[in-house]
């Protein structure tokens, strides 16, 4: 199927009429209807040749134009009775005038839009982690820790003598959070290859939570746990 451009997304029949009026320097209140009708129909034929998909409204306007043209040619019965017959073009002229006013109003809005686009207000505070609002309880933490230990027991077989203090792990966990808003619970334990290290790490985490330097949060009860850095609480904005 050939690609068809939908014309009415851009312009309507009134736009075409205004275009013809401007192009031919016509007076809206005294449109030479025969001339403009044939011009208009030429455009319709051109749209067809260019394979432009135009809306039925264009044809409605074409018939309106032809109707006005015929009314101007034929003396109407009522008109004969009145002193001054009504010009059949009046209604169309009024519509065009009104449409032009709204087009002008639209251009005023466009100017305002351009001005306003240069003015910035604060961005809404997007709770990007809005799903993680449940404070994980100690039991949740212990459960999660048990899963970590269970996995580790299957992997870790060697016994390494390594002395590490809780204070050191606290610093390491805070380092992990340095440039991030949160880390996953499991991430804290990755690379800890002995049970003792795992326990020290867990104690370090509990101490951080107790002193409110980090928060352990879940999206839903029993869900996975994320560790959030505390000082970013108010600065949640991106």
């Amino acid at each position, binding site marked *: 199927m050939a690609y068809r451009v939908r014309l009415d997304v851009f312009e309507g029949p009134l736009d075409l009429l205004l275009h013809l009026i401007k192009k031919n320097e016509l007076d809206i209140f005294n449109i030479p209807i025969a001339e403009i009708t044939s011009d208009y129909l030429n455009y319709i034929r051109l749209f067809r040749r260019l394979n432009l998909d135009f809306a039925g409204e264009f044809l409605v306007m074409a018939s309106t134009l032809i109707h006005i043209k015929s009314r101007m040619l034929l003396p109407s019965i009522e008109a004969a009775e009145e002193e001054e017959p009504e010009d059949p073009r009046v209604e169309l002229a009024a519509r065009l005038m009104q449409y032009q*006013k709204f087009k002008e109003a639209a251009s*005023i*809005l466009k100017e305002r839009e351009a001005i306003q686009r240069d003015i*910035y207000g604060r961005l809404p505070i997007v709770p990007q982690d809005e799903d993680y609002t449940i404070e994980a309880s100690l039991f949740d933490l212990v459960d999660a820790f048990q899963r970590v230990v269970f996995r580790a027991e299957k992997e870790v077989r060697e016994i390494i003598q390594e002395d590490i203090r809780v204070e050191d792990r606290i610093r390491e966990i805070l380092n992990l959070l340095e440039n991030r808003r949160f880390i996953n619970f499991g991430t804290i334990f990755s690379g800890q290859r002995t049970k003792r290290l795992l326990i020290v790490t867990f104690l370090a985490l509990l101490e951080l939570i107790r002193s409110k330097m980090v928060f352990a949060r879940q999206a839903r009860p029993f869900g996975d746990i994320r560790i959030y850095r505390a000082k970013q609480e108010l600065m949640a904005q991106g």
Partner: protein
Amino acid sequence: MEREKLKSIIECLLFFSDKPLSIDKLAEIIETDNCDEIKGAVEELEKEYELRNSGLQVLNIAEGYQICTRSEFSSWVRKLYKSQTTFQLSLPALETLSIIAYKQPVTRGEVEKVRGVDASYVLRTLLEKKLIRISGRKKVPGRPILYGTTQEFLRYFGLRDLSEIPSLEEIKPPVSG
């Protein structure tokens, strides 16, 4: 409450809010019935920002106030927010909006009569952008949906209220011929 303290509280609220705050809303937060005092303090704040050539301004838009950046510094803000997309309304959207703004509450049929083309797609986009809202149904056969503009419309175009757009009589269409 002391005047300077009141101004500081208002400044803090207008800075932190991501949308314009009305005088009523400010009064509600500050817990006072004296809206005149609040309004006076806001206006003083507005002048102070103006006088000290601040990079910020107290903007009176959408029937409220908000502290925003000044347009002359927009290039700097854009350097900071590189990813910020500069969304712009299409001409049909602007025309449709202006028809709704002037004729509201207005039905889809009435909008289409002015523009001479189908308006359903544009209306949907404007609803999504929260620039218009459904304000009710017209009490005529078929009960067609009525559309009106929103607070977001005022904010988007930096308008204090609807009276700030020139009346249709004031608008002079370009003289043809």
